[in-house]
């Protein structure tokens, strides 16, 4: 199956990516090849097969709801380039 330019631009938008105009054709071509390749799964007979989400047959483990970590905010925030008064700064969201 071949994807259209519009489809690829929509996917990019959902994925929060922008595609340069001069790269669109190459991205459309390669993504179309990948989709065509995985399309062969459609022919596999899977009626009644239970989907496998995870390799280990175990249930999710729970732990007591207690604080286990110390406050390391300053150290964690050392990796951002935009910080004010201990808060991350992003472009204005609400007018």
């Amino acid at each position, binding site marked *: 199956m071949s*994807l259209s330019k519009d489809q*690829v631009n929509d*996917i*990019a938008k*959902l*994925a*929060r*990516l*922008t*595609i340069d105009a001069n790269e669109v054709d190459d*991205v459309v071509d*390669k*993504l179309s*090849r*990948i*989709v065509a*390749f*995985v*399309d*062969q*799964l*459609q022919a*596999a007979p*899977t009626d009644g*097969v*239970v*989907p*496998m*989400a*995870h*390799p*280990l047959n*175990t249930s*999710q*483990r729970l*732990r007591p709801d207690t604080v286990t970590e110390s406050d*390391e905010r300053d*150290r*964690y*925030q*050392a*990796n*951002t*380039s*935009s910080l004010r008064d201990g808060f*991350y700064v*992003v*472009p*204005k*969201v609400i007018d």
Partner: protein
Amino acid sequence: MSQVNAALHLRTLCELRAGLRDGEFSATELTEALLSRIDSAGSELNAFITLTGEQALATARDADKALARGGDVGPLTGLPIVHKDLFCTRGVLTTCGSHILDTFVSPYDAAVVERLANAGAVMLGKSNMDEFAMGSSNETSYFGDVKNPWDLSLSPGGSSGGSAVAVAARLVPAATGTDTGGSIRQPAALTGTTGIKPTYGRVSRYGMVAFASSLDQAGVITRSAEDAALLLGIMAGFDERDSTSSQEPVPDYSAALDRPLKGLRVGIVREHFDEGLDEENERLVKAAVAVLEEQGATTVEVSLPNINLSVPTYYVVAPAECSSNMSRFDGVRFGHRAENPVDLMDLYCRTRSEGFGAEVKRRIMTGTYVLSAGYYDAYYLQAQKVRQLISQDFKSAFEQVDVIAGPTTPTPAFALGDKTDDPITMYLNDIYTIGANLAGLPGMSIPCGLVGGLPVGLQLVGPQFSEETLLSCAHQYQQLTDWHKEIPEGF
């Protein structure tokens, strides 16, 4: 430097351990010798993203003090190791081979890093890799291609290419790696090294930057199965910080190495020898199986009827999980941030478009597509069902055999640039390795010969938590053959 120290890079981890304990050389001398070797012999290979020489020498001096005091010291005291650059290392750059993290200094250590450090290991640096482990040739790294020491025009494989090359070129005795679809086993095969990917959940994923969470697993690349057993015994085990960490007890892998091959039932997968496998690779893999048979192992032909669907299944499941994991890279809390964004959407889109390379973007978009409304059932759900079929095929096979032996890759190492134009050709390189990830099984690659001067790997795959069988089988093979001792010319 004495003559002894000049040859330290040729020794395995277990040999170095004996030398350190006997006082033949110090941890500081060993560290200095390897750092100088990395600087000289390693200069053209681009195997490292970061070297941590000063930190390593400080750790080595502490190791020397501990060894001098005597008594109980950690099992890896003074022994050098390199970490793939997607393991978080506290205070040290952790880039995942990506521009988006090229200034990221991790505030904490990954569980693997922590366990090896607590055992006394000396970290020499962080190895180069495909960006976020998405690649099979090490060509998707933001930090440039890694060169294969067997021929500098060839790819070492990937994504743990830097780790494999550092070990193959005798720059370090051992390195950590991760394997989501073959990223330890394939580069191990293409560089003539020994690599093991344990059972899913065997080693904690805490602090290992996620690519596809239901497939990712940490392991090691070494020069012998004996060294792999030593390291895996320390890395493996329950960790409450990883929600999928297994509580299965960790056996003594080193003690299992001497298990005889007699009576071992070795499965030969019919589908492995269909089209696509290089004739010479096939000949060497069959010769390796014959060595196991001579020692009393029996072979049984088995079938994995859905294995030909493993690569397309993987290229739905892995990108789906990748698209969700990669959403954390938004330019706000860490990593690259686009300059002067006009609004939040612009910040996200430009940060990600500038920060990610082409292959990572392709996988994010593939994953976004297969998870999007209207396509989820047809692709993602269908892939999960086929994954179940593949997993059941392995279960049936392991009712008849203890281990499956076959090729790790279809061919020896390929030229850099050869497969970059067609993603599908590149993806098919992992045709023999992906099944183990989908089913969560342990897999191992060991050198089994040379074709035209290039190494070929024998892959062993076992049922879940059968690492002892793989390691003992590999160790016994390495007692009978010397392929793992072959060194690339000039190194």
